[in-house]
């Protein structure tokens, strides 16, 4: 026998479900000048500024991920960090309770890719089970992003790598959308 649900009760359930938005703290890590702030600004404001302005401390952005049909709303608190900290960042208070990280490298500066590889390992050690991906930024400056020579650590099969351009917006929204999907699917919040 089917149950008839009163209209007012079903509206209540719908409104309650909508109000339960998943919020996730996600870190942007990487050396100075790799494009962390540009990625955040491209994502949140759809803008790109070619002038470099170093991030001091932490700057927090808020971004609502467009949910899939019948999906739950999802919000990122994006912690854009000071690139000078390096691996000592994992000893600071900023990293606490982080649920995800995007570790950014600049494809035009190979040393930043080595650094990104090390930071990725350090994040995986410091925050086991959390979502992470290595972002290869500034791909608009390469003729063929697929021909990029990567450090050995980033060549492992199934390593989460994304090629982006904060300047053109290539893969920026997709990267965060994919992160939201994976975090939701794995229940990492």
């Amino acid at each position, binding site marked *: 026998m089917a149950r008839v649900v009163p209209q007012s009760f079903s509206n209540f359930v719908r409104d309650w479900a909508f109000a339960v938005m998943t919020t996730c703290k996600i870190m942007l890590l990487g050396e100075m000048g790799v494009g962390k702030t540009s990625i955040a600004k491209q994502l949140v404001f759809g803008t790109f500024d070619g002038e470099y302005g170093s991030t001091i401390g932490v700057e*927090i952005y808020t971004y609502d991920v467009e949910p899939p049909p019948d999906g739950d709303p999802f919000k990122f608190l994006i912690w854009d960090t000071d690139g000078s900290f390096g691996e000592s960042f994992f000893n600071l208070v*900023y990293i606490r309770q982080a649920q995800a990280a995007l570790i950014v490298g600049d494809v035009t500066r190979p040393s930043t890719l080595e650094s990104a590889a090390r930071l990725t390992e350090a994040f995986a050690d410091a925050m086991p089970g959390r979502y992470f991906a290595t972002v290869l930024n500034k791909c608009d400056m390469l003729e063929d992003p697929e021909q990029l020579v990567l450090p050995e650590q980033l060549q492992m099969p199934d390593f989460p790598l994304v090629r982006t351009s904060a300047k053109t917006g290539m893969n920026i929204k997709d990267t965060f959308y994919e992160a939201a999907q994976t975090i939701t699917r794995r229940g990492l919040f």
Partner: protein
Amino acid sequence: MRQADDEPHRNDWLTRAFDALGRREYAALVCCDSELIAIHREGQLAENISLGESICLTVAPLFGMEEEIKSLRLQSDSWLEIPTVAIVSNGAPTRRLNYLVLWDSPTDQFVLFLARSLAANDMAVELRREVRQRMLVEAEVAAQALEIEAANRVLMRVNRDLADFARIVSHDLKSPMRAMRYFTDDLEQSLLNPVEDDPKTHLDRLRTQSRRMSSMLTGLLSYAKLEQKGDAIAPVDTAVLVNSIVDSLHLPVSFEVYVKGNWPEIETLEAPLDLIIRNLIENAIKHHDREEGVVIISCHEEGKALVFKVSDDGPGIAKNHQEAIFQPFVRLNEEDARGTGMGLALVKRAAQSVGAELSVLSAPENGRGCAMIVMWPRVLLTKL
């Protein structure tokens, strides 16, 4: 949700702090109950913090910190500090604030302090920004110097190639041209006495030399084009590749070719790899001195390289020839009409284009056989 602004139970220091902060714009504080629900606030910096809600939901830097903040109740004289945080909205960061939370046991409350960075701190921030800018510029200059150095190496190699090319054109291609001149003279003579000296013989010789020269020019063009990488690096199943090469060869009936070892899938350029393996196998068969022979192609991994080896049971290559055979148009047996002498030159050039190393293992004085070894890097060189 609890409603705000009940008069909290405050001791003297908190009362004085509230009174002072009400008039200040560089600091603020928020009182919270044991569940971190904000119940009172003072100061302009706290105006956007909603009363009646948890500060861990309404204050972005404190998101997710509930357990850590609540544990302050168990640690006397402890606090949680999150310094130098700016919230970015509408494209520009707000003021940079320091956040500090402590547990005030006399009033049974958590207290959140917010304070602006002081002027000296702002100056230090600007100074650090300038220093960083300089560091980045220096890093860019260093990177450009490396690029220039790499470009110079390429230019030197190109100049060397041009010199080799000029030498080949002026020396090796002269041979068939000289032969054509002689045969033309012979043809002219034979036309005076066609009965005793058949002109057709000289015409055939002219035709042969013409074909030879055409083959040499085609080989030279292929040699020159090898550095132009039109392919992209892609997954290559080396087992499929080597088997397709072997299947496509026109093997003499009495020859046997075996594929051995571990042939993995790698990310690489397929065209030069195909060229190298194919030419090495064809060379081993072409220059075998017997009607029966065996060629073995093997592969194994060694560190950061794949090692391909093409071994045969042919006559071998003397040590004093083991470098010359990779030069264009060099043939050890000049009377051997097969080929133009470009096969191994193409192999060497293709190997150089991807950073692979070639070596020859052969000692005819000790016995028959020759092995051509290619160390193929798993990570290929960039264009520069």
